[in-house]
């Protein structure tokens, strides 16, 4: 996982609440067995005027001029500013992979849905929660200023706008550490392998019916 420390980048405003992961990356792209290549299909149904599938040449598909992220000013955006309950619905991590693949490093919203939020943290995409009214004010500022950027400092837990306003945000300390250092949390869990084995042995005594049930190798 790529560490996240500080980031300054163009911010794109997508003013909508309850954006679900089906909208972020439609189902037909979930057939891929890879982790990359989803960038062109971020918000696919909204982004293009013609339907697409994994075989399409996306560069030839007509873009929807009414979709905000298609505006020229947002082409190099790396931060998304958006509405509450972002990423609700399906658990597909492809939604996070699509953002990373499209060059995004952070998403700012009033709230996130649980699974999306967890997936983002595991992949190095920073999710920043700021109060409703702050997000709303930022939306207005960003929409009014072409090329608006945000400065995000994870160590300091701050977001600074071009107008110089600084907002602090909360983040789980464990998540912060993993993001800052780009840690592989599987390796962290495996440091406790002995403890896991002990727990497992006890569990086997308490609930033997949960062991040796499936599979051909153990």
């Amino acid at each position: 996982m790529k560490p996240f420390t500080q980031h300054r980048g163009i911010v794109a405003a997508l003013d909508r609440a309850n954006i679900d992961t089906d909208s972020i990356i439609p189902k037909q792209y979930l057939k891929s067995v890879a982790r990359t290549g989803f960038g062109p299909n971020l918000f696919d149904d909204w982004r293009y005027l013609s339907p697409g599938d994994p075989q399409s040449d996306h560069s030839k598909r007509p873009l929807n001029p009414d979709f905000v992220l298609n505006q020229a000013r947002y082409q190099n955006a790396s931060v998304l500013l958006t509405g509450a309950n972002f990423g609700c619905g399906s658990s597909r991590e492809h939604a996070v992979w699509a953002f990373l693949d499209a060059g995004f490093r952070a998403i700012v919203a009033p709230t996130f849905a649980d699974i999306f939020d967890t997936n983002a943290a595991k992949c190095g995409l920073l999710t920043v929660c700021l109060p409703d009214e702050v997000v709303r004010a930022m939306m207005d500022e960003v929409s009014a200023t072409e090329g608006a950027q945000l400065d995000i400092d994870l160590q300091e837990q701050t977001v600074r706008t071009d107008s110089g306003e600084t907002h602090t945000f909360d983040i789980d300390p464990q998540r912060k550490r993993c993001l800052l250092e780009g840690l592989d949390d599987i390796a962290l869990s495996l440091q406790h392998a002995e403890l896991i084995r002990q727990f497992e042995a006890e569990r086997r005594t308490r609930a033997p019916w949960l062991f040796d049930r499936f599979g051909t190798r153990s």
Partner: protein
Amino acid sequence: MPQTLYDKLWDDHVVRVDEDGIALLYIDCQLVHEVTSPQAFEGLRLEGRTPWRADSIVAVADHNVPTEPGIEEIADPTSRHQIETLDANCAEFGLLEFPMGNPRQGIVHVIGPELGVTLPGMTIVCGDSHTSTHGALATLAFGIGTSQVEHVLATQCLPVRKSENMLIRLEGTPPAGITAKDMALALIGRIGTAGGTGCAIEFSGSAVEQLSIEGRMTLCNMAIEAGARSGMVAVDDTTLAYVQDRPYAPTGNTWKDAEKQWRDLRSDSDAVYARAVVVHANELAPQVTWGTSPEMVVSIDASVPKLSDIPDPAQARDAENALDYMGLHGGEAITDLELDCVFIGSCTNARIEDLRAAADVVRGRTRAKRVRQALVVPGSGQVKAQAEAEGLDQIFVDAGFEWREPGCSMCLAMNADRLEPRERCAATSNRNFEGRQGQGGRTHLVSPAMAAAAACAGHFVDVRNYLS
């Protein structure tokens, strides 16, 4: 300290808690399907790891499988490749898999409980948000992303922070024609799709006690649509009767030991919850969603809301998007909405009781002419066999419905079953998101009986008038 069911299940699986309060939670069983697992297996291989406990994993292909009878080979090469990848990963790591064509194949959340893979007291995860379904059997079950799938494969554990306890009490006896689906939709209409965010929901109350396990599964299935990662119901006699004699359930003395432990899987009477909501099930009417989020829902006798009736500007903006997408102006009577398709299926509502309820309505009626397609997709091979033994398939076929092979089908349209742009569909699934059932398709969520009645009428009708 009095404990909730969730507290008990949680405490029972904590390996350690770190200084930040994050628990390493032991996972008893991981369910795997073809869409969210390939990258996890690949990650495992890249690190030179193998599954920690192959005997705790069950795999099944469900999302991509074709449901038209007689298809052995998937036409879409990417779908086929994904399923072949699952087969190959299961073979490589020695995992139990129910592949396409196996009589036990079906939607992952239908086959788990049905086979006795899901047992009370377990922790269960799956790379699928509707894993909450398994909570109906007093398990702690939740959906995870692919990185976490890999984590559990490699370590049998997940680092997680405990959620808040939320109680949903469903009280009263629901009138005839009101199902678990209506209760779930009415609840989400009230608390919203973020209403349970950060919470583990326990469903209790007299209406839940009266529900079958299948009905409880429908409720827990929809917990994720209320924003909660898990939903659960305490163990009672109904639970034990359901579990007993399932293929992977314990037997003999082991059953007796298990039963003794399971009886304790209920909240203490003085347990405290961070949040609580009471819904009076006896006051409910059949529910129909009108928009593109499950919280956009009204009763069958109501109308689609008008924008002018929504005071909150943010909500009005969402409603405007939704009305536009759904091809509605606002103010239409729900019973005036005409349908092009009907889908009876999914992990929410494709178990045998769902098919019986739908067949009861269809018996002696026929599909309305304007309905292009009415699909009945059983949740599993076992459900299909049972329905055929009861002659339900014939009732559907005689009425002009299509009787299909098990799979996720038009719940998310990853296979060939999908809506055409602008087609309006009554669906028994769980998500009415834009494009969910096919790009541009318009989904209205309802119960199986409501979907069946709508297929016969050609528009939504109050199923209470259809019951004999």
